[in-house]
């Protein structure tokens, strides 16, 4: 049973979400402020955290930033609907996914499951996949680490999976639909920008090649390509 930590100051909402998630087969615990949320999150007792942005004492972003200093605990952020900046910042500082509030609880469960599946496949029972190497970029699926030109690049689990999917097909276009289905585990819906956002974060983290070209190119209205020289 997966243990989920809910960090949200709306106590009633926490109760309801707990009830719903319990029925769906999760074990939950609620905390209502940022500080205690962070303390619990780093304890290692949980598989996943749901983190609201608006929190007393320490806001969600600060909690996430502190958390990322010592833990890779998957985090799903609850952002204010319509506030693009919140979700961009959230993903940039290492949230695994985001959900605008008010959310549909079914969607929440689907996202939680997707994140957990990814984690399980990592720590996985399957045979660890071999390292993939492309021009100085080295992905090791077993440790889920990325090295670029000798240095380590820290990626969130979604970013790692996206990069893996692209690099496996290096030099070929990977369709957006496929990336969404295989990595985000949901079908691509119109007006959904999360894929673009993850890719843009990935670009920032990888940087450009010495000759100034982008590693990941956008093929308009089709998908993305990891370019090889």
């Amino acid at each position, binding site marked *: 049973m997966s243990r989920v930590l809910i960090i949200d100051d709306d106590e009633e*909402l926490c109760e309801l979400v707990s009830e719903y998630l319990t029925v769906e087969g999760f074990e939950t615990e609620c905390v209502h402020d940022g500080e205690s949320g962070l303390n619990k999150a780093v304890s290692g007792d949980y598989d996943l955290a749901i983190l609201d942005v608006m929190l007393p004492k320490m806001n969600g972003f600060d909690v996430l930033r502190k958390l990322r200093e010592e833990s890779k605990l998957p985090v799903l952020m609850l952002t204010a609907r319509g*506030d693009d900046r919140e979700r961009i910042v959230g993903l940039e500082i290492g949230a695994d996914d985001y959900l605008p509030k008010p959310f549909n609880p079914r969607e929440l469960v689907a996202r939680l499951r997707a994140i957990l599946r990814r984690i399980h496949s990592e720590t996985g029972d399957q045979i660890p996949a071999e390292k993939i190497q492309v021009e100085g970029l080295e992905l090791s699926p077993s440790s889920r680490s990325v090295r670029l030109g000798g240095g380590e690049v820290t990626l969130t689990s979604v970013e790692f999976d996206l990069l893996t999917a692209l690099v496996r097909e290096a030099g070929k276009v990977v369709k957006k639909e496929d990336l969404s289905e295989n990595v985000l585990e949901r079908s691509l819906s119109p007006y959904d920008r999360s894929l673009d956002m993850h890719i843009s974060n990935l670009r920032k983290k990888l940087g450009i090649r010495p000759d100034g070209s982008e590693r990941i190119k956008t093929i308009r209205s089709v998908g993305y390509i990891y370019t090889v020289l």
Partner: protein
Amino acid sequence: MNLFFKIFLWFLAAIALMVGMVVFLNWTVQTEPVVGRWRNSVRNQMTIYAATAAQIHDSEGERGLIGFLDRIRNADTVSEVDVIARDGSVWFTDAANVESYQGLVEKTFASGVAEIEVGPPDTALAAKHFVLDNGDSFVLLLRWERPRPTPFFGESPLRYLRYAGLLLTALLLCWALARYLSSPIQKIRKATQKLAGGDLQTRVAIEVGNRRDELAALAKDFDVMAERIESLINSQKRLSRDVSHELRSPLARMNVALEIAKQKSNGDTAPMLERIETESFRLNEMISSILTLSRLESGSRDFERREIDLTALVESVVEDANFEAAAKGKAVKIIDGDECSVFGSENLLRSAIENVLRNAVRYTKGETTVGVTLKTADSKARIHVRDYGSGVPEDELNNLFRPFYRVGEARERKTGGIGLGLAIAEQAIRAHKGSISAGNTGDGLEVEIILDCKK
């Protein structure tokens, strides 16, 4: 015409008229006495000359007289000397047609005093008789140069300089005065335009400066008004924002409670629960739109700006809209797509174009294709979104971009809009200093977005 020029020209005209009057009056008043004085002096001189001529003839004879006449002629003021005897015979002359003087000669003999006849321009013929010792009578005629009245426009350059100085002073004075009167009005007008354009923080009293007249009072009143409007609008906006914000928490709880109810429900309540879900979804959409709009309206222009490939953006939005439209048997297509990049916020521009497109898809008739064009000219990008719906009554076109404005209540309900999409689009475009407008094409509506292209 511009107020500044009006005031300037009126003052200039007034000054010019006044100066003209003064000069003219001065000239006429000055001219009369000059001519009068000259007549008297000519008369006196004629009497003296005539008497002298008689004495010289008596004492020195004809030769002496001729010498005397020559001397007279050498004077600057006399150009012609004639002497005519009583019987009409010409004794001495410089003129070609002495006969024409006969009248004057007769008159002089008759009156016995000096007579003056104003002749050809600027000269006058004066006559006086004299009697010799031997009883012969003659008339002495002298043509005198008339004194010219001081010319209106003097020849001396100094005079011109004086007029130029006068003119320049008048110009400067008028300019300063016109400027003094019109510049605060200009400033107040600019401020009014800014306020009307939505910048509620516009104030003008400081700019108008330290005056103590009606214009300064007007500027102060303007500030009071702007202050009042600003606080009213802000409190209204804050209210709608806070209400929307607060509504989200219960809505979030309701969503979760609804799902729990669904988990526990038997089949009977399922359709109603679905219905509740749909309505809560709508509520949610509406609240996020209000929040987006109020964020845009609050003028937080500090959104992240960077260079954006507008063509790619339009293509990607069209693709999404087409996907959505396909479900309703409609389509969205790019007809023309010039290359263009703009400087701004991708999210805002995306939501603007998206809202316009969704609106077009909503209203275009089934089986039709919404056409999108992107054209660039004169460093402006023009995006046209054309639908094939029933259009909008002409007098309601401008209201289209007002929040919650509905063209025909029933129509809007059926099509499921909430009346905020175009308002959001307008605010987003405005935040990029662009413009958005709508017009009927005859068989549909066309929305035009104009943005500055980045070179």
